[in-house]
């Protein structure tokens, strides 16, 4: 495979876009449909990444890749799912304030544990030793394949979200997001539904975290900061929290525009790359979040159009 046209910047830029898009799509289910503001996305993603990394590197597995990857990724997914179940149980009957505290607190707990358990995680020094579960040639070819796999996973998530909108489950989530007491009076267990939603989406976030660990090869507590949550949130909000394609469009316009176009193709002073650009990125993302929510709270795509959807799937 000739990948001359593809430079390393572009691959990692595209990978970032795919990763954040996956998270934003999952956040869409929580925030856009269920109206649960998860401010701890990075916690679930991070716990997946670290569980994967620690199991992959520290445990002496009797089998090699790809089984080693699959087993460790499954464990990471499970761990994130259990965390989602626990956090979901804690916050499902709390209001937005409680949800903010619980999810933000969980993200902090994950970061604290990654720092303090440094005999396992490498703490602030970081942890190496991860690699792709295959070897098909050059570094670039390996990275490209992983990018393709990740993109496929994101497409699967997108399809799932697309189907959720067309299912009784999605309808229930929208109802719960709209009025929980009313949904309860119709016999719906809002608590269990939210719990299930949190468990499933968190597990998927954990799986994405594991995939990220594979790509970056090196785990570092700096990567599990609030920037991940922000990127997913700003992408989703810009595109439209309530729409299936909101996360896709929004993430392309935020992370895509910044990580690929600005970083790779704009002639910025060289010394900016180490410190100034990431900082500028966050500041701009924060600003975008404010501007969109004040002036167009439903994002580019606007509100969900259930009337059109109902006509499409059930006829007039």
């Amino acid at each position, binding site marked *: 495979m000739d990948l001359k046209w593809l430079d390393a910047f572009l691959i990692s830029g595209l990978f970032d876009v795919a990763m954040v898009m996956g998270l934003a799509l999952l956040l869409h289910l929580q925030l856009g449909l269920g109206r649960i503001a998860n401010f701890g996305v990075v916690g679930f993603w991070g716990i997946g990444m670290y569980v994967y990394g620690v199991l992959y590197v520290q445990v002496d597995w009797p089998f090699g890749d790809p089984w080693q990857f699959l087993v460790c990724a499954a464990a990471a997914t499970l761990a994130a799912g259990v965390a989602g179940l626990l956090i979901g149980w804690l916050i499902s009957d709390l209001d937005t304030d409680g949800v*903010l505290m619980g999810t933000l607190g969980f993200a*902090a707990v994950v970061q*604290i544990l990654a720092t303090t358990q440094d005999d396992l995680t490498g703490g602030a020094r970081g942890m190496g030793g991860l690699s792709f579960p295959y070897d098909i040639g050059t570094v670039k070819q390996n990275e490209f394949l992983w990018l393709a796999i990740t993109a496929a996973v994101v497409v699967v998530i997108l399809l799932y979200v697309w189907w959720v909108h067309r299912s009784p489950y999605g309808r229930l989530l929208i109802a719960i997001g709209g009025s929980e*007491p009313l949904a309860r009076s119709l016999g719906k267990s809002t608590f269990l539904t939210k719990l299930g939603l949190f468990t499933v989406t968190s597990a998927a976030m954990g799986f994405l975290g594991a995939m990220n660990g594979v790509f970056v090869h090196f785990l570092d507590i700096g990567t599990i900061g609030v920037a991940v949550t922000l990127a997913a949130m700003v992408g989703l909000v810009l595109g439209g929290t309530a729409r299936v394609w909101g996360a896709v469009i929004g993430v392309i316009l935020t992370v895509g525009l910044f990580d690929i176009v600005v970083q790779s193709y704009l002639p910025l002073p060289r010394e900016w790359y180490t410190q100034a650009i990431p900082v500028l990125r966050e500041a701009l*993302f924060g600003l975008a979040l*404010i501007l969109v929510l004040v002036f167009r709270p439903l994002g580019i795509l606007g509100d969900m159009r259930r009337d059109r959807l109902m006509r499409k799937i059930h006829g007039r």
Partner: protein
Amino acid sequence: MEFVTQSLVIGLTENAPLVLAAIGFALLYRLTGLINVAYSETITLGAYFGMWINTTYGLDFYAILIPTGILAGALSVATYLALFRPARHHNVGALELIIISFGLSIFLRHGLQFVFGYPERFYDVPSPDTIMILGVGVTSFRLIALLSVAILSGLLYLFIQRTTLGLQIRALASDEDLARVSGIRPLAVTTLIWFIAGVAGGLAGAFYGVGASVSPLLGWRQFLLILMVALVGGSWGLGGVIVVGVATSVALAGMALQFDQVLYAQLVLIVAFVVILKVRGSKLTETAKV
């Protein structure tokens, strides 16, 4: 016994600004119902304002408190008038308001980083003396900070509880419609609240800054703790915030002494607070509107 006194002294002196910050945050929360994540940047900017006045004009630390408080208060009011009030008028939901404040927090924090860079900065103050209290060495600054925070908290408490303006604030927080028909102007009173909260946050920032150093992450590092103290303590009023704030400070110091890693203390506190919220939350499921 030594452990107890150590925890008390260290906790109170090191974390005194936490109480002040939590009071300001809780006031805003109780009156406007808004969880203002950007409050952490009010604290950070307070620290920067203080440092800027201190190093530019060579003023004594105590002389800078008044301008610092006013600047931070003005900043807080500006965010209200420029952002949160228009957002309310656009009928932005409560959840979106929190996300807006989250965005503002990130914007300000990273804007500061962009302007000032990462290096930690310090106030230009004479190096403090160390005083022994109950067998624990404490710098004079921290001691005075504790004293100042205690006085400021007391003044704030008196202002809210005893003055006419404070009464308007509490009336508005208690029942907005009834306050309006009683002749209270919501805009004026709400602006006042944002100002007071800003002053409290800014001064807390100045005390944090002079006690250690100033960096763009100063406020954000404290935010979760402030949020937890305000949410859990706030249901018992301002007094509750103060009590929970002090208890948290002491517990933090005590656990820091016990564990080899300070982070474990935070870990325990986060878990404890979320569990408290959960237990109380289940009890508070009062009448639904169905």
